[in-house]
Structure formats: C-alpha cells, structure tokens
C-alpha cells in the first residue's frame, strides 16, 4: 500500500512538475549539457604535487575533465555557466607563474562558441597529485633544476609547455560537445554526509603544529582544526526524469595516490565507476572540492582499524592502508552510497526552472604581511638548499651515468624546489610593499536554493565553514582550487606553523581570508 501511495505521489509530482515546466516562463528554462574528455597525455609528463619531480611511468587510470554546460533562458541574454572539473592538482591562472591553463581553455571555447563569455567558464581542480604538471610553461630545468631530457634519459617525454595546449584543446572540444548536447532539464538539490576528508594538522602540546605528523606520540595534543563531512549534491535530470549527472562537492582533496608515478584521477576515478555502476553508465560525475586546505583523505587516528576493515572487505590484493587502492575504493563507496541513497528523494523533487544567476568578480585581497624575520629565515633555508643543489648537480656532472638509475633525479629536484620555495618569500615580501592587494577571481553561481562560491586557493576549512554558516542559501557549495592554488591558512594555523601555514606556502594570510569570506558573502547576499 505504501508503495502504491508512493507511485501515485511520484506520478502526481511528475505530471505537476512537467506541467510546471511546460507552462512556465521561458526565461527560466534550464538547459543542461554534459561531456567528459580524456586529458591523459600519450607520453610521459611531469607529475605535479610533490617537492621532487616525477616523470610519469604509465597510467593507473585516465585523468579527465568533466564538463557541465548550463543555460537558463533563451537568446543572447541567457545566463550561462560552464563548469569544468579537471583531474589536476591545480588550474594555472597566471597568479603564481607564467602558465594559464584556465585562460587557454577560455580562449579556445570563446573562439568556438562566441556567445559564451570567458567569465562564464569556471575551471576547478580535484587536486589529484598524480596528474600532469600544468603550473608553468618554463623549461623543466627552470622548474625542477634538471632538464626534461636528463630526467627522461633520452626517452620520449612531454614538457608542461607542450602538454598545456593539448589539454586546453581537448577540454575546449569537450565544452563544445557539452554545449551542443544541452537539452532542457531540471535539478535537485541534496545534502548528505560522508566521512572522507580528515584534518591533517596535529597540534602538539608545546603549541606548534605539524602536517601528517605521528599522532601516536606523547607530544600530540589534538587535531588542529575541524572537518566538514557534509556532502553537497546537485542532481541533473532530463525531461524524462532520467538522471544525466551529478555534482559531488566534498571537503576533501583527492590525493590518496599522491606519491604515484602513474597518472591517476585518484578516488574520483573509483567514485565515478561506483556511481555509474549503480545509476547508469551514461551518468556524469562532476567533482568539486569544498574548502579543504587543511584536509586530506589520510587517516590520522585509527588507521590500523580502518586498514583491517579494508582487508576484511577483500581489498588485500590491491593493497591496504595509506595511499592504497583499497582506501580509494572505500572512499568511493562512501560517496557513491550517499549519492545512491538520496537518489529516490532527489528524483521526486526535481526543480525545472531554478533561479539562475552567475556573477564573477575580481576581488582584491590583502597579501600576507611578511616580516624581515620571515625573509631571513627563508633565505637562510634557500642558501642551505642552494648548497645541496649545487653539490648534487656537481655529482651528476662528475658521474653522468647516474641518470641511468631510475628516478635518480628525486633528491636533486627536492633541493631545487626547496631552494625556489625559500626564494619566493623574499619576492613576496618585496611585492607586498608595492602591491599590497592581489586580485582574485571569485565566482558566485546561484542555482535554485543553492549557491556555489569559488576561490582559487587550498582554502582552510574554517573559511568555508564561515561562509556556509552565514550564507542565506539553503545549501552552499564552496569550490576551491578554481585557480592555481596556494594555501590560505587561518591565524590559528599560522601560529601553529605547520607546512601549509608558513610564508613559503602562502600568498594570503588571515586578513586575506577574512576579506574573501566577506566579499563572497556580499556577492551571495546580493543574489537573495
């Protein structure tokens, strides 16, 4: 009887919703188009995400870009948003280095589809640490202190400068495809929970913090910050109420396989497979990371228990524990289970003409105010690493055969990265004097009762929580890493001094963070 009632309810809702759609103002009609493109390079490339260089040694699973084209209304005045989610560590945008993958994509898309404006295109990264390097178009020697030829030892390899246009071409083609395929559709908004992102900073009893330190220590006091286990979801439907795709927004970067030399989309690959398995092969999954600069998927407390569960789940052969495929599958299961669990309720509550607004603003944020002591400390470190780099380089010079050893370049590229890292502090110190503010691109998109608010950072979770707590939207999706990404830590974290909060890791500090929150909320409030 209950089932019969539910069927009638669904039928009624379906008729009612469709009538609503048919009779409504065309200005609010929503069109939805999806595509996905493979952006896996066909030659070895630099893998981004660690101090040391990694030249890719094959493909664990494809790295992709998923595109969602949205248009509300008709004609030239229609509101448009192109969401592009990339399996990359960050999206270069000219903020930190010369490369600008974001604008390379925009230029190509606008050329192919003149009715789309560059500022209607949002590109975010999932933060997989096993994807091609796109942060710079400089020669590899300028990035890692070792040339690509030396790293590859004569074998074919592709530089970032070569890869970036290829990726931009493919992604732009994907946008064109999604745009052409767009059809009337509806959305439903869901809020679930899944424990995926875990705070990776440990506060010690003496007041300092560290990232990924051992919690099994008498010095350990507590986990420094908070976690956000909410799962913001937006489901998209065609007029037959068939699911076309879903946005999954989770406060966790996808970096389980962060040390891999094989390219991989990390847990999003497994999540997409799990969702498709249950909801259909044609369903797209667009991944977004909410504010999660201080989060990771790595278990900080209780890892032994979790690893045992992975073994009992039968994942033993695939490896268990930190960085394992088992952990990725476990995360994928948690995400997919929630998406699937909410599916019936979402299907019964489709909104065909959601309010749709998109605003982009260049927000000037205060750069982090550094002290001469910060510069002196960083410069001293840079000098140490310079000496180390020089020594290792001399060793290569004296013993050229060293490059025949697999991954021989690890230590020398670490020393070069840390040398560069030390030097940027001085550069930032000088820049702050003449350009105390730095313009940051922020997008705010309202879809129905939900709002999406982007930022280019690895934004510490507290800022996201502040925005969510004060937002007038029913659900607020924070989308981090819609740019090249640098950590944006809280005052508490700066006092703790862990990696992620030190001057070399940051462009902005708490002042910039507070401004970002305030400006984002102002933009959101205007839409309500």
């Amino acid at each position: 009887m209950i089932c019969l009632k539910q069927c009638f309810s669904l039928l009624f809702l379906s008729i009612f919703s469709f009538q609503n759609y048919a009779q409504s103002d065309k200005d609010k009609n929503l069109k939805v188009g999806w595509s996905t493109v493979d952006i896996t390079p066909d030659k070895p490339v630099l893998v981004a995400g660690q101090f040391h260089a990694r030249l890719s040694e094959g493909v664990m699973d494809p790295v992709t870009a998923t595109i969602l084209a949205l248009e509300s209304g008709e004609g030239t005045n229609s509101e448009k948003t192109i969401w592009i989610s990339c399996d990359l560590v960050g999206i270069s945008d000219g903020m930190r280095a010369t490369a600008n993958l974001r604008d390379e994509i925009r230029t190509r898309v606008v050329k192919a589809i003149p009715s789309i404006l560059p500022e209607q295109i949002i590109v975010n990264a999932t933060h997989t640490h096993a994807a091609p390097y796109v942060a710079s178009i400089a020669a590899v020697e300028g990035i890692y202190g070792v040339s690509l030829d030396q790293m590859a030892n004569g074998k074919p390899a592709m530089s970032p400068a070569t890869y970036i246009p290829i990726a931009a071409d493919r992604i732009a083609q994907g946008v064109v495809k999604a745009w052409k395929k767009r059809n009337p559709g509806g959305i439903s908004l869901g809020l679930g929970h899944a424990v995926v992102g875990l705070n990776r900073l440990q506060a010690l009893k003496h007041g300092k913090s560290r990232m990924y330190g051992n919690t099994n220590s008498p010095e350990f006091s507590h986990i420094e910050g908070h976690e956000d286990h909410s799962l913001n979801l937006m489901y998209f439907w065609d007029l037959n109420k068939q699911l076309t795709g879903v946005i999954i927004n989770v406060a966790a970067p996808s970096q389980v396989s962060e040390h891999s030399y094989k390219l991989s989309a990390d847990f999003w690959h497994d999540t997409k497979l799990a969702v498709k398995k249950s909801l259909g092969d044609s369903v797209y999954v667009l991944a977004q990371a909410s504010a999660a600069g201080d989060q990771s998927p790595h278990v900080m407390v209780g890892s032994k228990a979790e690893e045992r569960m992975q073994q009992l789940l039968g994942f033993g052969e695939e490896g268990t524990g930190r960085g394992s495929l088992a952990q990725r599958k476990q995360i994928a299961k948690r995400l997919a289970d929630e998406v699937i669990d909410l599916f019936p309720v979402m299907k019964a509550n489709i909104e065909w003409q959601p309010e749709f607004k998109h605003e982009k603003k260049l927000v000037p944020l205060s750069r982090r105010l550094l002290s001469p002591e910060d510069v002196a400390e960083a410069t001293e470190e840079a000098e140490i690493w310079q000496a180390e780099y020089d020594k290792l380089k001399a060793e290569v010079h004296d013993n050229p055969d060293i490059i025949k050893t697999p991954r021989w370049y690890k230590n020398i590229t670490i020393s070069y990265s840390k040398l560069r890292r030390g030097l940027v502090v001085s550069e930032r110190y000088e820049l702050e004097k003449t350009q105390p503010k730095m313009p940051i691109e922020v997008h705010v998109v309202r879809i129905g009762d939900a709002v999406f608010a982007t930022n280019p950072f690895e934004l510490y979770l507290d800022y996201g929580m502040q925005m969510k707590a004060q937002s007038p939207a029913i659900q607020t999706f924070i989308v981090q890493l819609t740019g090249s990404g640098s950590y944006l830590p809280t005052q508490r974290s700066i006092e703790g001094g862990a990696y992620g909060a030190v001057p070399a890791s940051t462009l902005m500090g708490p002042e910039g963070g507070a401004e970002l929150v305030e400006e984002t909320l102002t933009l959101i409030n205007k839409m309500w």
Partner: protein
Amino acid sequence: MVRLCVLLAMTFWLNVRLQANDLYLGAASADISPKLPVALMGQFHMRIAETADTPLYAGIVAIESRDGQTGLDTAVFVSCDLVYISARLRQELRDEVAKRIPGFNVNKIIVSATHTHTAPVLEDDLEESSFIYPIPEEGVTKVKDYRALFVESVADGIEDAWANRSKGSVTWGMDRAAVGYNRRTVYKDGTSVMYGNTNKEEFQNLEGYEDHDMNALFFWNDENELLAMSVDVACPAQEFEHKTTVNADYWHPVREKLKSRFGEKVSVLGWIGAAGDQSPHSMYRKAGLARMQELAQKTRMDDIAERIIRAVENTYEIVKNDRHTNVAFHHKMENLELPMRIITEEEYIASEKVVKDCQDQIAADPSKAPLLYAKMTWFGDVLKRYEAQQKNPEATYTSEIHVLRIGDAAIATNQFELFTDYGIRIQARSKAIQTFVIQLAGPGTYLPTEKAIAGGGYSAVCQSNVVGAEGGQLLVDRTLEIIDKFWDKENEVSLKKKL
C-alpha cells in the same frame, strides 16, 4: 625427528595459550523505565514527565575468560538509558549483585550512560550531588524508589546474563558516521559559547574536533547466534533533551531497528565515546538539513538512527566472518586520584553572588524554585569546593576507570563528559588495532581541554568542572599505561579464528 618434536611442542604451547583464554559470554536486557510521573534529569529547570514515549533499557553483556574450568577474568558491561551513573546508584547495584552472585567481583561491573536528558533524576542528596531539584514529596516517583527499581531490574539482568553465559565468540569493527557535532562556537574575540550562533560575522570556528568513527563489538554464543552488540558513538543521546516525557532518545529507534534486523533477543549496548563537547545538534548548514528531512519525510531522529544503523550493518557484514573464540582478555579497574580544578577567588565571589540571587528570588517567590533551585546548587558546589580547597589545596578527586583488552580491541572507560580531544589522544596512542573510549561510566561532569577552559563558556567554566585539563591528561596517560601493559609481549596471545 627433532623438527617434529619442536613442532609438536610449539603446537602444544600454542594450544595451551589459546585454550587459556576461551570466552564465555552471556547477554540480557533490563527494562529500567520509571514509574510515572517522574522528575527528569538534564536541564536546569525541573521537568516532571507524566508520560513515556519509549521504554528505557539497560543492555547487558557478561564476559568471562577461562583456563579450562578456571575463571581468569571477568567484565560485565551495563549500558543504560540514563543521563549519567551516580556513584550511589553504581554502588547499590554492585551491592545487590554481590548478594545474588556470591564471590563475584562486583568491581568488574561497568555501568555507563547514554546521556539521554529524558530519563529519571538519580540523586536528591546535596551532600552527594551538585545538581539537586526541588522534587515534590508527593505525587512524583521518589529518587530512591527509582534507584531501587533500577537496581532490581539490572541485577536481574546481570544475574541472568551471568548464569546463561556459554562459550562464545567476539569480533570488532568500525565504520564512519557523522552523528555528533562539536557544539562550542569560537568567536573572533577568542571566547567560546556552547551552542553559540554561527550565523554572525564574529563566528570564527568550531572549537574542537569531531570523532566520526563508529566502533562496534559483536558477541555470539556457541550456537553462532548473535547475543549482543555494543555500538560506540561519540555523540551523547540528547536530540530530545528538552522534552518533558520519558524518552531513550536516539538509542530507541537504533535499538528497535537493530533488533528487527538481527533478532529481538539481541542485546544492544549504546556506548558514548568521548563527546563532552559534542551533541547531535547541527551548528550550521541547518536549513539544508531541515530541507532534506522534510523532503525525505524524516525527522532528525530518523536521520541519526539511519546513519548509525547503516554503519552498524556495514560493519557487521564486513566483520561477521572474522569471529574470535580465543582472545587475550584483560580487565583492570582502577581509582585514579585526579587533581581538582582550582577555583579562583573571583570565581568564588561570582558564584556566591549567583547563589545569593537564586536564594533571594526563591524566598521572594517560591514558585521559582523549579527554575532556580538546581542552578543554586550548581553554583553552590563551587563555594563548597573553594572552601575545601582553602583547607587542602592539594585535594584530589577519586575517579574510577576501567581498561580492557578483548583481542585486538581496547576499551577504556571514564566517568566524565570527556572532551573529544582526550578520546582522540587515547585512540591515537593506543596499541590496540581498535580502541573504544566510553564516557559517562560514572558520575558525569565535563572534563574540558585547556583550549576550552581558555575560551570559557558552559561546560568549560569552574561550575561545570570538578577536574580540569591537568587531570584530563593524567586520565589519558594512565589509561594508556594500562593499555600498554595489556599489549606487553607476555600478554600477547595469538588469535585463532573460529570461522
């Protein structure tokens, strides 16, 4: 030949060691519902319940490890739908069990509370408690009568579980479920407020961590029938904390659904992990949660229950074939002497003022007593502690803890509403594969962290705390010392899987 002898000797040695730790298990449930009307514990104002929405239960598991026919060690877990376990209630229960089971070491009985705020008041003696209601002499169940009912019913259950114990098996497992939320809001000026409004510009962050691990133990008898399960959630059962009806809070729907899934006879023990700064109330994203509940035609209670049930079912399916019959089993009860939180003169003066104010208001208008009496006694306890402190500044607070090893799992109890960071410290440094922290296994008072004390706010002020952060760390350290001993090489026993 030599190799064969060595092999036989090793086999014999292993078997002896394994057989030395056979587990005998028994389980029971006890109805601890009060006679109505009854005064409810948990809010400053007095509430008299005329009706009950749900029964109140105690889940019981009795464990004995044996070497052949010789008992080695024991534990009896009693999980109760109560706000805490008063020292008197625990002692009365132990005395009763001692009468019924001669020779049984009643200090091995561990009684813990789920922290439901809609269960009976347990104390009415100002000498024993800092939180006393002016319960009417007539027409309401007397506190001592409820304690007697509790003791009778739970002692029956313990006796039954103990008498019916048989060789059994156990396993442990975990999943993750976001149930508890940190309830202490930190503002930009550095102050903290419990349940402070987060929807304001001054909001900075939530003060502490949340522990979304959900640990579970499962117990079977030798017929492979599931006897009991204990489910450890770092969230007090206080979704319905303001109701004026008797209610077991989220453990009721959880228990009902788990029984329906696993069998009516299965005893479900609700344990609360270290969660002094947690509650089931969302601190932000409230509109989104409310909308989802409306769309799904569910209440927050349904939502909580479903999250826990799903985690238990997931866990059960994964671990059900990894049962252990021969496991290391150790249980140590210890009374810790913890330094008491120092009351400053300013705190004394401020508390004295509040006491005086309450006294004056009640004197002027006795009808205000139900609202103000508990507050008066709560602040009044600060005066008592301050005066005692003047006589003996080094005075300590005696606190009972239990630490157990069951196979690869450790269980550590404490009496407090223990802030989550302490639980995390214990879990992080424990040698066990899985560590269960159970709070409120005794008279509950908040045990806050240094960070929380600095922020202030209810639960971290002197009125809320008999023991402060220094005592919290001692509790952690001593618990870990005992766990470490249980994992000494000499105590290690290889596991033998039954299935």
